[in-house]
């Protein structure tokens, strides 16, 4: 039950894109077509879960015992960059099909602020399971990271669907491209605000 509440809150209420503004660049950049949006979401979910696993371990097994938490930013981004490279290499060898689907998105993910953002969020912020609040343990961290990634995917895929429809309508010249996408995202964010009532 606790996990369900935390998942719903991460996917809908605190949607990483529409209420926390993390990962907006790929959101606007590769959401023109549903197929690319799905690919990007898959890649982000995969990397985000893995990255959170590694950075959680780095934080609690290296940085905290050594008392050098101030190295967090440097350490985390290095781990993520290395991880993305490794995933790319391994995927190419092990599953060419999956690499075909996700490969082109992987290099973009290092600088996707959602990945680093969630990694930092998960170790720095106290989360509340009904009852007590505490820092997350490893399993909870990975679950919540995956849930955030699912929220990212949901927003991304819905948005791509809307943008495909937008291509078919006559948009005033000055609104074309990013401006109308932003305004659409604003309306979606409003809709997502409605979820605040359910948790």
């Amino acid at each position: 039950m606790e996990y369900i509440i935390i998942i719903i809150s991460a996917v809908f209420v605190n949607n990483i894109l529409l209420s926390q503004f993390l990962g907006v660049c790929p959101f606007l950049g590769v959401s023109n077509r549903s197929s690319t949006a799905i690919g990007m979401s898959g890649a982000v979910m995969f990397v985000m879960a893995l990255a959170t696993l590694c950075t959680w371990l780095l934080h609690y097994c290296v940085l905290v015992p050594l008392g050098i938490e101030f190295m967090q930013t440097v350490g985390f981004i290095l781990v993520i960059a290395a991880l993305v490279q490794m995933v790319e290499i391994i995927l190419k060898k092990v599953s060419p099909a999956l690499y075909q689907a996700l490969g082109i998105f992987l290099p973009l993910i290092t600088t996707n602020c959602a990945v680093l953002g969630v990694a930092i969020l998960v170790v720095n912020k106290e989360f509340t399971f009904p009852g007590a609040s505490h820092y997350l343990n490893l399993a909870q961290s990975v679950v919540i990271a995956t849930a955030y990634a699912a929220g990212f995917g949901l927003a991304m895929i819905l948005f791509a669907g809307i943008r495909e429809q937008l291509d078919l309508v006559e948009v005033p010249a000055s609104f074309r491209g990013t401006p109308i996408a932003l305004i659409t995202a604003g309306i979606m964010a409003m809709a997502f605000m409605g979820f605040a009532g359910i948790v």
Partner: protein
Amino acid sequence: MIKQITNGIIKENPTFVLVLGMCPTLGTTTSALNGMGMGLATLFVLVLSNMAISAVAAHIPGKVRIPAYIVIIAAFVTVLQLLMQAYTPALYETLGLFIPLIVVNCIVLGRAEAFAARNPLAASACDGLGIGLGFTLSLTLVGAVRELLGSGALFGLPIVAGGGITIFVLAPGAFIVLGFLMVLFNKISRSRQ
């Protein structure tokens, strides 16, 4: 030199023309001062990392270029984090997560790759300054509009009695205000041509 600075403010404005660094642009502009603080924080990192990368780029082997740049940028971001905690704690708390996220701001790595790596030190510093100022101005503008509409104030000074329309300081307002400002920017640059 001057050209490099103005270039970043208007012709290559990172927010309205290049559409980069959207996350902090949306996430921190709940007021004009917050937007300005975020812009200046990014400016600090941009100038220093541009200078450092311009100085060492020639000695870095091609294949480890990106990781090397990321380490340099992350180091300056951490310096900024520590300095802000010490001297501007209130702003540091408000901007929160978005300060460490300067590391992955596409503007910073983008300028390192596109400009600093192939230009001399002074020019790179000016480029960082220009782009940083452009970013600061855009964020201040977005912040000012949202603050005026959302809280009825400007730079913390109340202007409209009775506050504003709260939705503009919330998430949807960020997207909508930025969208309409971009429309305005497009309109102006169109009519100029």
